[in-house]
């Protein structure tokens, strides 16, 4: 009896979870389906998931030829990688200093980090845009990357992680003859991989999918990031060609989906470890 009620409870739970997953996945599934539909299929009055005439090849060819998809993806990779690397390079030493070194400005810095967490990019977008415009820096990787290089969120996340690291470890490193930079490179970073992975998810997902900031600072197609490229695609090339648009979207979301599926276990570990949810 016990076993039966267990299986019943299990079944109900599974059903609820599957239902929830289906709701969340529905748009993506619909996107995959639409990417394979011909124009006539999309605009037919009946709603069907399976395309009547499979036109994946046609749609993907359109998506790949009409905009330079490689440039878009390359821009996405360059911008996300630059942002992530610089963010980590700045946030780790900063968080280490705030967590483990004693200095007078530590409290003031903590307050600034908190304030930074409260101010969204939308509030500072206009002044930064004006500054970049005056400095003739618009339409460049610099304009896409620079505003995000200092991530207060990253500092905060690493700060929490480093606080839990034992002081004795750092003391031992100091006695073994390491400088502060040596401690960061040889002790902190090798032990901070779970936190770095967790931060990588937040940072890369946010900046890969970001449309707001590229839309402001980029008007030249050759610097367009994937979401901005999609926008151009729709506005200029496709018009109402939703099949090709969905095919392009599929291509653009694919890297993140693939990366997540490949490193799923590590990501989940990283996120549960830092106690944060996306």
């Amino acid at each position, binding site marked *: 009896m016990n076993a039966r009620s267990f299986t019943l409870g299990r079944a109900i739970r599974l059903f609820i979870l599957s239902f929830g997953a289906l709701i969340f996945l529905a748009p993506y599934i619909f996107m995959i389906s639409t990417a394979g539909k011909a124009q006539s299929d999309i605009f037919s009055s009946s709603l069907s998931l399976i395309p009547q005439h499979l036109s994946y090849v046609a749609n993907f060819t359109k998506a790949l030829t009409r905009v330079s998809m490689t440039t878009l993806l390359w821009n996405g990779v360059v911008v996300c990688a630059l942002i992530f690397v610089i963010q980590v390079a700045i946030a780790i030493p900063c968080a280490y200093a705030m967590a483990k070194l004693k200095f007078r400005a530590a409290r003031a810095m903590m307050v600034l980090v908190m304030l930074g967490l409260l101010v969204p990019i939308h509030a500072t977008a206009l002044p930064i845009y004006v500054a970049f415009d005056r400095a003739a820096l618009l339409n460049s990787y610099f304009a896409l990357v620079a505003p995000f290089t200092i991530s207060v969120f990253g500092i905060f996340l690493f700060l929490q992680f480093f606080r839990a690291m034992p002081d004795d*470890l750092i003391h031992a*490193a*100091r*006695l073994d003859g390491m400088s502060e930079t040596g401690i960061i490179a040889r002790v902190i970073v090798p*032990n901070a991989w779970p936190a770095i992975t967790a931060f990588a998810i937040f940072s890369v997902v946010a900046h890969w999918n970001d449309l707001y900031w590229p839309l402001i600072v980029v008007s030249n197609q050759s610097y367009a990031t994937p979401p901005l490229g999609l926008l151009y695609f729709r506005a200029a090339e496709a018009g109402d060609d939703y099949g090709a648009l969905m095919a392009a979207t599929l291509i653009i979301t694919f890297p993140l989906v693939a990366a997540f599926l490949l490193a799923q276990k590590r990501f989940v570990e990283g996120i549960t470890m830092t106690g944060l949810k996306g």
Partner: protein
Amino acid sequence: MSTLSLRGIHKSFSGNQILKGISLDAGENEFIALVGPSGCGKSTLLRILAGLESADGGEIIVGERDLSPVPAADRNIAMVFQSYALYPHLTAAQNIAVPLVMRNLTRTQRLPLIGPLMPGQRKAIANIRRDVREMAVSLKIDHLMDRKPGQMSGGQRQRVALGRAMVRRPAVFLMDEPLSNLDANLRVHARGEIVDLHRRAGVPTIYVTHDQAEALSMADRVAVMIGGALRQLASPQVIYDDPAHVEVAKFIGQPRINLFASQVGPDAIVAIGDNRLRLAETMAPGAPVTIGIRPEFVTVNRSGQHGLPARLDRVEFLGSEIILYCRLDAIGETVIAKLSPSEGSGLAAGMPVRLEFAADRLFVFAEDGRRLPSLPVGADIALEKAHG
């Protein structure tokens, strides 16, 4: 070889004085145990010595040099931490090699990719490998060299930590309760090993512990710290048999010393039971003093006229000894006595007994805790009587 001297080290945290002018000398090859109740400042003192914390004042002299302004990395002082503080991402061999890599390789030689191209790097690394190997063999951990700290037991980690501290031949060796995370059997075994290692290394060693048995059994000299001040620095025997302060007497000794409040009588005589002690210095009659006697110097008589009448409250059998808790009839205070099992056989709670104190083992302490030198009165008379 080097010596270590501390001169008037003091330190306060937010107005709280943690260290009140600590001065201490350790000769080359000397093992000093720094012992005291938790919160007495012993760990802070060790951290100041290591350079992890800065003192508000005072000097740390190693050899001829004042190290107070020198950063921890350049002091050539090694430390074993209570938590061992091994690098979790490195193997045992890499852990032990770290201090050598940091000291014997130049900045460029340490760089990845570029390092191996630097002249002399190959030879320096071969030397480091050899030193690490020798250290591992001498600590009998050479079979563990490829394991990470997470895959080792507490005792093995402790050896790796010792190896990492000793491999670079430091000028001073510091240990912060290195045995407190080991189980009881291993701890006793590890005591002997640490003493052996110290002898081979031959550098001044400061060993912090709250365990008096460790301090007494391992050290050449024991420094007792109470409330941020160094109360006594002497050989284990002197610390035990001749405490300079009531706090030292209270802290050292298991079970605890018996203490009685008393007063100075006429002619600087202090009396307890049948015993009378004459103080070496004259004190006003009526001045409060404390009299102390260690439990093993309390004799328990089942009958007779001598001694203080008392009642047995509790009998603890510990195998090699018996601990008796007796309540004095006159003042209701508990006196602890330690007996051998043969002396104590047949004693049970509730029995009336008489307690006698060994006259030459009584200590007198002034109100401020300072020891007052004293001599038993009547010892010579008793001796004459016996011979006469």
